[in-house]
């Protein structure tokens, strides 16, 4: 796959080269417009490449020469960067040894393309690094921003801390449409069906009954200051199961596929032998330059895996790339402008927690999720990274284990209280573990219509006191049409537990509305908590070691708080379920009751009873006839 692409790009570059070296061969405009001639010259170029031999290095230098001619390429590792299609691809893998002894591996792939799908009258048809399947979808449905994630498992905040990109169990999709779209619902419906095909997932089950338009919780992450939530659609499918069939189409979106670069590590038998698996695609417009005159499209593909120490380690607390992925790294993706592996060594400055080999001199510091972290960096584009064995197999040996629970600053959980099949109560508990800072959070709850929420019972309590939300957006459900949507801005007092409770009644569904396994229960998606959390860096007391004193009196703005999104667990709620195993019996019984019971009771209740006279004997009747004729009283 990767080799093919390399070949194609070479063809394209040589094609350009042929233009440059023969400027007098005719009118340039004409020749680009003329398709046949273009194809001709392409095939001509192809022949040239074939004749050029197989040495990749030579070709690379060749193309670099072309680039030098154009005077466009500045970095020496971007061999393939042509003049017209300004796109680039980066890949990185972050490995974080978790507090619990597990290992968190997060892959990030970023494709950046300086083009605009949504521009009027301009049809983008030539794709290089950006996947065409997605590009076409974006332009067809005028998508401004698209975020989709598939997750199997639940992120254990108490043990693992915060993930880089959070996602709820199951599938989640949220899309901002361009403000020119007139029929948002129609586009959304089609888009979900198309995405369902692209990702081999049941996204086609997204319909009006599980789609909401949050007013505040999901703001656009890219440029374009859209804030009218009419153009936003948000839906989750908590029941979606993620497996290899979803991974394969996801991998195909990568320029190198799974043939080269970091993606070689993604073997499904290992990725799905983990405690947590999440893959996502995020597309958004970003600025091309500082002035932000033009936008570029950014495609981020993200894959998070947490490997379990116990089940795979067999007691040995030792980790390596080979153990985790049954592969080692041998090369970067040739199309990538940067390819790096980061290992989080913040908790391990003196090597007391674990040993990391091979050691690397490269260190990098970054403030991630409000915490200053230190990383060892392995640059895959450099040959010395791979050493003499020509492969990189990171090895991590734990020295001690610590299974204590973490106390993340923001943490939430949710459960259904009560018993019986009539009513219940949803409890959402949000913890603020910051010792002295209060901060607001946005809570988004989308509950299916068949849980009829009694919104008058909504109660928010912190520290046993009523906590009135400063902003509430509630959209009641309509049976079989749309779900409940509840958004609230709640101020969390410092070091507190805030409990949001609301009672609900379980609806009795029509018999065709039950799923094939009604006794399993019905899912309610995770609630979403978005917050600006005060940073750990601001809590840091011994910052003087790293920074000069004059820089650290006021907390720096960017570091003083950071955005965080927390998803609670989905709920499994049992609804009153008829016994489907005996529909025949039920039909028979009902018919019998109606026919026999109701019919005859109705008869008995409405009929008036009279004792009928015994008919008089014949002689008497004859006598009466004669008497009537005579006009004398009749015999009784």
């Amino acid at each position, binding site marked *: 796959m990767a080799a093919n692409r390399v070949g194609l790009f070479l063809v394209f570059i040589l094609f350009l080269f042929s233009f440059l070296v023969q400027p007098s061969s005719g009118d340039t405009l004409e020749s680009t417009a003329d398709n046949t001639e273009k194809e001709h010259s392409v095939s001509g170029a192809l022949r040239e490449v074939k004749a050029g031999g197989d040495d990749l290095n030579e070709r690379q230098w060749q193309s670099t020469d072309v680039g030098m001619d154009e005077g466009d390429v500045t970095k020496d590792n971007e061999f393939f960067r042509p003049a017209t299609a300004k796109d680039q691809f980066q890949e990185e893998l972050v490995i974080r040894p978790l507090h619990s002894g597990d290992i968190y591996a997060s892959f990030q792939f970023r494709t950046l393309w300086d083009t605009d799908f949504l521009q009027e009258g301009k049809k983008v048809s030539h794709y290089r690094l950006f996947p065409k399947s997605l590009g076409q979808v974006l332009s067809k449905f005028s998508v401004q921003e698209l975020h989709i994630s598939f997750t*199997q*498992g*639940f992120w*254990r905040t*108490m*043990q693992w801390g915060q993930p880089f990109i959070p996602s709820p*169990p*199951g599938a989640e999709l949220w899309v901002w449409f361009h403000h020119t779209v007139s029929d948002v619902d129609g586009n959304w419906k089609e888009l979900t069906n198309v995405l369902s095909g692209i990702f081999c997932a049941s996204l086609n089950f997204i319909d009006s009954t599980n789609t909401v338009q949050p007013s505040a919780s999901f703001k656009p992450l890219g440029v374009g200051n859209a804030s009218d939530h009419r153009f936003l659609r948000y839906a989750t499918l*908590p029941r979606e199961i993620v497996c290899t069939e979803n991974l394969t189409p996801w991998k195909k979106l990568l320029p190198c596929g799974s043939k080269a670069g970091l993606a070689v590590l993604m073997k499904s038998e290992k990725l*799905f*032998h*983990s*405690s*947590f*698996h999440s893959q996502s695609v995020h597309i958004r417009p970003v600025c091309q330059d500082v002035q932000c005159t033009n936008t570029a499209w950014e495609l981020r593909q993200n894959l998070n895996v947490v490997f*379990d120490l*116990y*089940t795979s380690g*067999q007691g040995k607390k030792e980790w390596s790339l080979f153990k985790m992925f049954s592969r080692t790294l041998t090369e970067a993706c040739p199309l990538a402008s940067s390819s790096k592996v980061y290992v989080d060594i913040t908790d391990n400055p003196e090597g007391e927690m674990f040993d990391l080999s091979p050691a690397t001199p490269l260190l990098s510091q970054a403030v991630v999720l409000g915490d200053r972290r230190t990383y060892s960096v392995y640059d895959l584009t450099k040959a010395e990274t791979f050493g003499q064995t020509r492969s990189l197999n990171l090895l991590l040996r734990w020295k001690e284990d610590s*299974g204590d*629970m973490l106390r993340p600053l923001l943490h939430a*959980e949710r*459960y*259904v*209280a*009560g*018993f*019986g*099949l009539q009513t219940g*109560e949803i*409890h959402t508990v949000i913890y603020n573990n910051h010792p002295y800072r209060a901060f607001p959070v946005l809570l988004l709850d989308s509950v299916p219509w068949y849980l009829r929420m009694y919104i008058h019972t909504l109660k928010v309590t912190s520290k046993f006191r009523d906590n009135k939300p400063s902003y509430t957006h509630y959209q009641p459900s309509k049976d079989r049409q749309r779900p409940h949507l509840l958004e609230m801005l709640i101020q969390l007092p410092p070091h507190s537990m805030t409990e949001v409770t609301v009672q609900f009644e379980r609806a009795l569904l029509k018999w065709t509305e039950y799923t094939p*396994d*009604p*006794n*399993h*229960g019905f*899912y309610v998606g995770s609630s979403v908590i978005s917050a600006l959390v005060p940073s750990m860096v601001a809590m840091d007391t011994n910052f003087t070691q790293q920074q000069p004193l004059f820089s650290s009196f006021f907390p720096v703005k960017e570091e003083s708080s950071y955005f965080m999104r927390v998803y609670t*667990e*989905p*709920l*499994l*709620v*049992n609804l009153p*379920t008829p016994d489907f*195993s005996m529909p025949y019996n039920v039909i028979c019984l009902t018919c019998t009751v109606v026919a*026999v019971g109701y*019919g*005859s*009771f109705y*008869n*008995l209740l409405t*009929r008036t*009873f009279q*004792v009928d006279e015994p008919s008089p004997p014949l002689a008497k009747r004859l006598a009466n006839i004669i008497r009537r004729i005579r006009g004398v009283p009749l015999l009784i």
Partner: protein
Amino acid sequence: MGLLSDPNRRKALTNLLTRLNTPICMVCYLAAIVWFMGLAFEPFTLRTYMSENAMGSTMVEERFPSGERALSTAREFDGHKKKAGGMPVEWLVKTMQARGLEVFTQSFSRTLPFPDENKERYMVRGTNVYGILRAPRAPRTEALVISAPCSPGNSNNQAVGLLLGLAHYFRNQVYWAKDIIFLVNEHDLIGMQAWLEGYHHTNITGIEYSPLQGRAGSIQAALSLELSSDVITSLDLILEGLNGQLPNLDLANLFYAFCQKLGVLCTIQGKLQRNDWDSAEGYTHAAQTMMLMVLKQASGHSWGDHGLFLRYHIEAASIRGINSFRHYKTDATTIGRLLEGMIRKLNNLLERLHQSYFFYLLPSLSRFVSIGYYMPAFGLLAVILLLRALDLWVNLGTPALAEDGVSEVEQASSLGVLSVLTPVVISHLTGVALYLCPVQMQEMAVEHFPVSETEAVVLTAIAIYTAGLALPHNTQRLLSGDGTELGWRVLKLTALLYLAVLLGCTALINFSLGFILAITLVPIAACVTPYMSKAWGVLAMVLLSPCFTILYSVFIYQELIEAPVTITEGWMLYLSVISQGVLDHDLYGSLVYPLLALFIYPCWLMFWNVLFWK
């Protein structure tokens, strides 16, 4: 129904029913008893079978290896328990954490309404420790529970040891689809009640508990383990839960299937299965097993820690290891494997257990009597009440026409309403007194009489019960004038229909209780008239009153579990059963005591009124 709309044929039918009323009733009563006893006869029962596909076809392989280690953990637990003088919370938390579980604790406290003399507790304070094994790639929506009680003394150490052993083994497996909660509860049922109420965030019994920190979604099934010896001869399955609720029969089938597979002797009601159904002994054995189940179910008591789960629609059973004098012993590894197999199959469940029966009786573990088979026995008894009511109704209607005293009848019926209503209201007030006074007035009783609180409660209850018997005379005095002939008939008709409705509802929820009450109450309800010989009437009524029914049940139960008691021991046992019933109601919300006090006893008093009608 054409039969009823035709007055002539209706008259013929009612004539037939009134004329043959007594014989039909007697036949029905005998038929009910015969039918019920026939339920234990093997050819009349069905063989149990696994209905749930997810548990049937998917066989699992049991590999739990470390029974010996579990036993050494048990000894360690014993040591720490003795040192801590109760639940060794810290040790348990540390041990569970070392096994890779998420560990949480819950403290609770409860003051009993009066001291429980059986278990010697009054102010109960304790801590539950539970660890959650998170299933990989599962979204915390479903869970299974394995629990073991932390009991005082030397009992149940092995259960806790095995629980921890299983936790260690399960943690290293990859196939879990549901989270597994390992719970060690203190003070058996009280701790379990606190934990369940905490988990579901309800408070129905007024217990004080600290809120739970960790949860794992909706619990699908639970197993409670009781094991007090290193090796066992057999495993006993306990199904009867609070208010006579039973878990889905598939849970019993699952246990039986694994006992067969691993060659472990299994019993129910502590009785082994016999193969000689055609011999008299074989039949008696099956009948005894079934009778034990009926008695246990009727008591409404939770016979194991599992019983409290059933309220929350969680299928649960207790498994108790029994070590008797047989030679063939089963070791802890095999029990561990059995549990592993059961849990793994429950883990395979796609839906809650719902395929099999929820209403059944078990004459043995491999045979069951479903609701369709046992309900006719109760139906035959209920029919007697309806037939007698019909007879009275017809008699009430016909003499008025025959005596052609139209005005007199009208007067009498208007009087009748009052004369019927008064005894009904007074009986029920007595019932309310019986329900409220024993617990409310215990302090006063203790002050004035040299008895303990528990005795005070029980004796107050018996005193109020007995005092109620004196009421008819006072009731009569309240009314102006004598009770008429019509009066007692209307009262008896009301009482008959009332009893029929009461027993019918009870039997739908708890067949055993309904049936036992029906067996004793129906004869007196059918026969009682003011014209009976007073002495015999009183004797029969008292001997068949609910109070004596409990007494008989106690003696029969002791006889059936092969621990016969003398009269005095029986009497002491009887007193403790009553106090247990009151406690069950107060602590866990059992409904048998209020049912008896507020409904059945007043209903019986109404018949008592009929007997003393003047």
